């Protein structure tokens, strides 16, 4: 295992060393010591690496991730796993706002709570949150799934496209065009698989499903007040 201590090296040194693995992969396992909330840790990875960040991370940790498995052993700041393409990002603590924003693929697991706008404009990523999510989560979510084992804040799924949302706890309010939907066998199956992939022990039968009523897909003047 390769260890980089950010008390001695810069974030740029870390990211450069990780990027070099995309050319010739000689070291798959990495640990990052003393991250101390610095921004942009393990960003733009493009190789099947395992990166353990031993502490709290700042903004945009594991942004644009492709193939890599990044674990934050602490909290993560704004925009963790933003625009992820594939791979896994796991936050052991809480995540701040806009976790998994615009992410196209891969799996983001947050073991604590996520802040506001979790999964904003998500485009195919699967996000599993063991705790709660803040307001405006999944705003304009386009594809993928959001699983919330705790509660959801205001305006969940506002202006939603095709994301599948599963919430076990309460939902403070649903956003424009987001509705509760029937939980059919195929959804139980999908949710079971997501919980298994995330390593979360919850009963899929206790979740409710939410999705787009598709009323805002085409402009209708009667809907003007809802836009």
């Amino acid at each position, binding site marked *: 295992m390769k260890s980089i201590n950010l008390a001695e090296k810069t974030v740029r040194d870390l990211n450069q060393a990780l990027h070099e693995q995309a050319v010739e992969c000689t070291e798959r396992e990495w640990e990052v010591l003393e991250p*101390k*909330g*610095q921004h942009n840790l393990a960003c733009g990875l493009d190789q099947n690496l395992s990166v353990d960040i031993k502490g*709290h991370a*700042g*903004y945009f940790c594991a942004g644009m991730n492709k193939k890599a498995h990044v674990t934050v052993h602490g*909290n993560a*700041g*704004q925009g963790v796993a933003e625009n992820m393409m594939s791979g896994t990002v796991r936050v052991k*603590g*809480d995540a*701040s*706002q806009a976790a998994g924003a615009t992410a196209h693929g891969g799996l983001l697991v947050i073991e604590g709570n996520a*802040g*506001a706008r979790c999964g904003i404009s998500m485009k195919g990523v699967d996000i599993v949150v063991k705790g709660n999510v*803040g*307001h405006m989560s999944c705003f304009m979510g386009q594809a993928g799934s959001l699983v919330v084992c705790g509660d959801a804040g205001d305006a969940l799924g506002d202006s939603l496209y095709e994301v599948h949302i599963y919430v076990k706890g309460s939902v403070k309010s649903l956003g424009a065009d987001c509705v509760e939907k029937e939980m059919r066998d195929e959804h139980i199956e999908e949710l079971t698989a997501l919980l298994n992939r995330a390593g979360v022990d919850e009963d899929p039968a206790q979740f409710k499903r939410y999705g787009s009523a598709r009323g805002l897909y085409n402009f209708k003047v009667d809907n003007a007040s809802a836009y």
Partner: protein
Amino acid sequence: MCGIVGLYLKNKALESQLGELFTPMLIAMTDRGPDSAGFAIYGDEVAEDATKLTLRHSDESYDWDQLAIALQDSLGCGVEWFKNSKVAVFKVQTDADQALAMVRSVAPDVLVLSAGQSIEILKEVGLPENIAGTFNLSGMKGSHIIGHTRMATESAVTMEGSHPFSTGMDLCLVHNGSLSNHNRLREELKRAGVEFQTENDSEVAAGYLTWRLQEGDTLNQALENALKDLDGFFTFTIGTRDGFAVVRDPIACKPAVLAETDDYVAMASEYQALTTLPGIENARVWEPEPATIYVWERDQ
């Protein structure tokens, strides 16, 4: 952007180290606000019948001794003072109204940064590291402290426009964000008797709290009202003589992190500013919820 940091000590044994603990927190927020910085420190209280004023004059060789004598003569009471760079802290054996009126009449070119029993405000234009050095922040003692590093958006880069703002006794406020209804609110508050020294939006927020507290609100109630009446983006940290509060607007665009141990409560715009605190590895660290008021107050 702007950076906010605050440290409220629960363990009195740490009071002699307040400045030392706080200096790296302020400097860590330089990236968020490099144009000016300041802090309000609480401690070294004067008696109930006395007033502590933080005064500033742009001329570092200003004759504070002469001002002290003038106050002594005109008020007929004891005055003690000490100087720190362009700022002087005056301890006057009279009530605040009298002390303030007299300073304004004998020395109209002196700026009053704060008045109260406990508060001292020190702020300047420049890099946070230089400002901490100028005022010898690391050697300061006290019970709690609130600081700000500014990246100006709503008004000019001036000492007057830097934070913290104090518009009432022992009250101070620091702000990250921008208010959209500050002009109208400023006019309404002026009619209610609140005085402003700048065109800055954050000073209006401080003035609003002062007005609510004068109307009889508790700090908690004043902040609940602020959530209704202040329009815009904000993370505020507020200091009072005995208390410390944090509140974010309902949209919560502006970041904040809180950390609590048995010894202290600390807040910062980003976790980076908390990493040098003792025992931070085992602190409870969380992000304050939007439109939620967090208050810590010392028992009187």
